[in-house]
């Protein structure tokens, strides 16, 4: 699982470079994200523009990141499309993570 970090002020944009976040990869993804949160990155944009498949284990890992952040910050999702956007809609997690078309839009929503 390759994650690419870019800092924008106090917001960390994390782009997932793999095409899938599935049950095989979810534990590694979650560990890597929690490590960032525990280093103090509590305003995050998760860029899923390169991801074309997420299963419920991957989605559960994203939810657990939001729980780890808690009231200290926020996590926005950018670039979800196709099957990935559909999973957020089916599970109604799009009410929890509003889906932003671009990283720029997502940055506005998490800026402190």
């Amino acid at each position, binding site marked *: 699982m390759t994650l690419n970090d870019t800092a924008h002020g106090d917001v960390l944009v994390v782009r997932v470079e793999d095409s*899938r976040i*599935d*049950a*095989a990869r979810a534990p590694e993804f979650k560990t890597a994200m929690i490590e960032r949160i525990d280093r103090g990155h509590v305003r995050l944009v998760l860029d899923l523009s390169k991801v074309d*498949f997420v*299963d*419920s*284990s991957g*989605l*559960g*890992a994203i*939810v*657990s990141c*939001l*729980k780890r952040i*808690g009231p200290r910050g926020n996590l926005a999702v950018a670039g979800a499309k*196709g*099957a990935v956007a*559909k*999973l957020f809609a*089916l*599970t*109604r*997690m799009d*009410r*929890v993570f509003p889906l932003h078309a671009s990283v720029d839009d997502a940055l506005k929503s998490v800026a402190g």
Partner: protein
Amino acid sequence: MPGVVRLSIDSDLNQVEFIARAVRSLCDNLLGREDAEAVELAVVEAMNNIIKHGYRGRRGEAVDVNVTLTRSEVEVEVVDHATPIPERIVKGGEPLAFDFDATDVAGLPEGGMGLTLIRMSMDEVDYVSRPGENRLRMVKRIAAS
């Protein structure tokens, strides 16, 4: 045109992607993109459940997937020899939609979504458990063009 393709993997989450990609390419010419993606999700969720809950992460067991293609539907049957899905979950009137309080972050579900996603993604789902063998049959109908 009707045909049956039989696939088999070891009970290893790292191998689920191979089945997902194979089933996806079998569906691609028959179903539209959204329906093919729905079948891929259902198959992955079914296999994850078998490996994580049925075999409890134990490798070295077989998970078989039979894909039957006809003019009117794609049928995917997943066969395992693991602990079956508990009857209360299969029959237990599991909701066909996700209902939770989106404002209660601490209470958001992180798991247990697989079976509901399978039912939402496919047109028909049935599960038959016999001693030593479980069969999950999932059907996606091909939209008339």
